[in-house]
């Protein structure tokens, strides 16, 4: 009964949102027909932003609720804004060091939850959580343990070398690798289309995914890439993208799924002049017990704004700081 009340309220919220021309995503009606490019493809072009504070997985504290009420959403957002911007000196120095990574660094749009007020970005399975892991092979368990050890060394400020750092810290790949997940900043994507192609250029780190939509086959299996190899096709007004040929380095695939058995399908649907639904489904029978899907709304940014270059490796001084800090402390016998 309570669930149905919530669903009705959710629908009411959505209808109100439409009425007030708020960017709508998630439960949008099929009425919107996107404009077409001169060659007839649905037009997804522009600069889009996917910042949100809605978590990927539904937290255990919402009692299984799929959608927040208007009131709950407003209160959540206000509390979040407060938490992130108030002066906090509690927690001791260890905690305080990390608080320098504070709100000033972050995309202000991430204070908002999605317009449809879901409690998780994951929409399938119904509990909003990543499915349980399949028992991993001993080799993969060892690999995971090695990665965890490297991460622990890094977090402790004692990395052995640059390979103890993650691919994003080393500026190899960041949020440019699919699936696209919202992060704390630089959540922009620019889509440019020309006949036979849809190109998605994320801000961080500037790699353009040039996706052929002309039906050509994937690269041969032997050619592997950091961002995989993408092929697109139109399903009505939805761009469906399948990506294969991922490299097998650690950290290439979300949650270290197995590139040999990993599959990802993304769906891009423009649902309003200034809103696009980005949905991805990932499956890997040797990692998760079932496939799972997340839906993330993208909103068009203010036309006066732009996507800017995010060069990363070029001035990545911190890599040296991490290493010289570790070497110095080792020499002086510190272990913290």
């Amino acid at each position, binding site marked *: 009964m309570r669930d149905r009340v919530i669903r009705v309220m959710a629908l009411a919220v959505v209808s109100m949102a439409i009425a007030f021309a708020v960017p709508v995503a998630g439960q949008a009606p099929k009425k919107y027909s996107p404009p077409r490019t001169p060659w007839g493809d649905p037009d997804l072009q522009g600069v889009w932003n996917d910042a949100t504070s809605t978590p990927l997985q539904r937290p255990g504290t919402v009692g299984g609720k799929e959608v927040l009420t208007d009131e709950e959403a407003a209160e959540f957002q206000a509390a979040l804004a407060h938490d992130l911007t108030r002066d906090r000196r509690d927690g001791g120095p260890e905690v305080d060091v990390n608080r320098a990574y*504070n709100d000033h660094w972050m995309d202000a749009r991430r204070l908002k939850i999605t317009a449809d007020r879901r409690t998780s970005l994951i929409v399938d399975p119904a509990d909003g959580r990543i499915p349980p892991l399949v028992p991993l092979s001993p080799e993969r368990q060892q690999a995971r343990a090695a990665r965890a050890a490297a991460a622990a060394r890094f977090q402790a400020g004692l990395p052995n070398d640059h390979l103890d750092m993650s691919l994003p810290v080393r500026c190899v790949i960041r949020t440019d690798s699919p699936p696209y997940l919202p992060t704390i900043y630089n959540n922009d994507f620019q889509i440019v289309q020309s006949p036979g192609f849809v190109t998605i250029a994320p801000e961080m780190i500037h790699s353009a995914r040039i996706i052929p939509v002309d039906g050509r086959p994937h690269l041969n299996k032997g050619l592997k890439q950091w961002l995989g190899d993408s092929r697109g096709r139109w399903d009505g007004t939805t761009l469906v993208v399948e990506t294969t040929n991922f490299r097998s380095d650690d950290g290439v695939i979300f949650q270290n799924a197995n590139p040999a058995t990993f599959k990802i399908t993304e769906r891009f649907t423009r649902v309003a002049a200034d809103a696009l639904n980005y949905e991805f489904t990932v499956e890997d029978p040797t990692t998760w017990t079932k496939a799972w899907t997340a839906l993330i709304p993208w909103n068009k940014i203010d036309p006066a704004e732009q996507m*800017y270059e995010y060069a990363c490796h070029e001035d990545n001084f911190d890599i040296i700081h991490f290493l010289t800090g570790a070497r110095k402390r080792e020499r002086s016998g510190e272990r913290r």
Partner: protein
Amino acid sequence: MGTKRPGFLAGLCVLLALAMPASAHHAFNAEFDPNKPVRFHAKVTKMLWVNPHVWIYVDVKKPDDSVEEWMIEAGTPNTLMRRGFTKDSLPPGTEVVVDGYQSKDGSNRANGRDLTLPNGQTLFLGSTGTGAPYDVKKK
């Protein structure tokens, strides 16, 4: 400010951590030392307006009148620009109070936890037009 928080706000940090790739950014305590807090009056000499982090160069006058150069780590310029903070926001010569933690390797580097301007505005805690709804009361 509400005195009662909805239950789903519990474990906020966990929620936010789940929403983003775990290693999309580094934790500061891998680079800066909690045992070495710093706080000094300084003068901005230049801004290195680069990704992945802006670096604010400041001159710090020591008790013996000598001057030390420090480098303060700030956010990504793309985000700072979108929040209205540009490479011209801190012209050389601006007097600031820097609050942060020193680099683990002991060099003259700190993460910029707070930067306080002469008029009392604190830059990094969202009270200068960054859209935060709450004022920061300096301790």
